[in-house]
């Protein structure tokens, strides 16, 4: 997933927290772009940027979801949220427990369309990993990640083909369904990956 992460670039005291969030997201296999000057963040290729510009598209439209850390308020957060909702991008506001959320943002949750795409989460600093992983689950669900959408071409041997045919014959599963199920099972049993995925 391509995730845009934004925080208050003037809140230097929170940089360690912002970096931790980026590290968790990238560790889970996501591409993270950010307004902050931190490690492990990505940038678009120049050729891609030119293509987007020629089409009149913004870089924000290319992202799958947004994570805004608003423990320290930054003025652009409202605008980013508004644009994310306009482009139907799932967005999460993360704020440390005890921080007051702008009432205009809370009021957005009264709109049923916006409420489906927005979550506001409070967290304790020592539980930041849990908060970020919950965001990933929310974003993947809302971004339609549970529905297989990514085309993947795999060349197989005749022997594998015979096996898949034999395994799925007289079942309601296609060969692709069977393979997806096997991979989901591997994911659920992979202890290393579980650290990044609840």
């Amino acid at each position, binding site marked *: 997933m391509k995730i*845009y992460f934004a925080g*208050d670039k003037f809140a230097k005291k929170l940089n360690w927290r912002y970096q931790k969030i980026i590290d968790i997201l990238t560790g889970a296999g996501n591409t993270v772009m950010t307004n902050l000057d931190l490690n492990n963040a990505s940038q678009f290729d120049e050729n891609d940027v030119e293509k*987007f510009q020629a*089409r*009149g598209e913004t870089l924000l439209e290319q992202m799958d979801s947004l994570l805004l850390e608003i423990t320290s308020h930054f003025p652009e957060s*409202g*605008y980013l949220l*508004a644009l994310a909702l306009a482009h*139907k991008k799932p967005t999460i506001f993360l704020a440390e427990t005890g921080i007051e959320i702008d009432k205009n943002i809370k009021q957005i949750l009264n709109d049923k369309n916006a409420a489906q795409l927005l979550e506001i989460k409070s967290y304790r600093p020592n539980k930041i990993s849990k908060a970020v992983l919950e965001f990933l689950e929310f974003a993947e669900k809302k971004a339609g990640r549970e529905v297989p959408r990514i085309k993947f071409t795999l060349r197989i041997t005749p022997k594998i083909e015979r096996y898949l045919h034999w395994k799925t014959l007289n079942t309601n599963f296609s060969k692709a369904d069977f393979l997806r199920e096997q991979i989901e099972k591997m994911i659920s049993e992979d202890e290393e990956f579980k650290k990044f995925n609840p």
Partner: protein
Amino acid sequence: MIRQARKKILILYCGKELNYENFCAWIKEMPELEIIAEIAFLFLKNDDGCDKNYFWEQLSQEIRKQKKFDGFVVIHPLSGLLFVSCALSFLLNDFKPPVIFTADYDRPDGEKNKFSIKANLINSVQAATMDFSEVALMFGNRLLRANQAARNYVSSLSLFIGPEKSVLGKIDFSIRILKKNLKNIKAPARFKSRLNDRIEYVKVLPFFNFDNLRKLKEKDGLFLDGTGQILSAKNSDFLKKLDLPVLLFNFQDIESGRNLIAANYLTMEAALTKFMFVLAQTKKISEINQLMAANIAGELL
């Protein structure tokens, strides 16, 4: 951290597609706007009659009298958008808050276009909260100075294009205002907020007979669109004998002189609306020449 007070933005709807009730319903579908700024709305009927300059003057007066707002967004049909925004750039040349135009245009089937209109409006409101004094167009990923913009007919969400110095802002993950391109007019003059529409517009095609211009009556100016032609010495002498200012647009190798004013340093819309604006300020040929050559609202290409 001290939070800044929320900016107040007025959205003026001058479109044709929606009546007042539908407009209110449409705005209600966008609660996101209130996150960015404190929003108020004004529904202006845009009578699509011939008296367009009357509506342009009315729009500028309406904006001027709204003293409590920090910025303005005007939603206008695509058709005529360049003319109205150019006109307002002159009528509001000394106006401090930003005025951002975007369009209410036909929405063909397809989710992408619906998102674009909403995104344009959100970007317009955000731009209107920023600190610059320009009349600009917001479409796609560009904020352009209105009186230097032209229609972009290549398939793109950025419906208008302009030279590099007309790009006032770019949108990637946020709106970046390009300060180097903002107009640098330290003490803008205060003019009359009027436009003079007693102008004859003539398109000069290769077979055009300049003798037809003898029949011009009750006009304060002549706008000749040269379509890339060369103005012959004979025709130039003929025009110099006319007792009114003549704006020469899109002629090759032309220079100002006497009552002839060369305007190849402007877009067509900017040239025509600036001419209307200048003719409302003065009748003296020398002053008309001076004002047409001056950089009133950042319009010079």
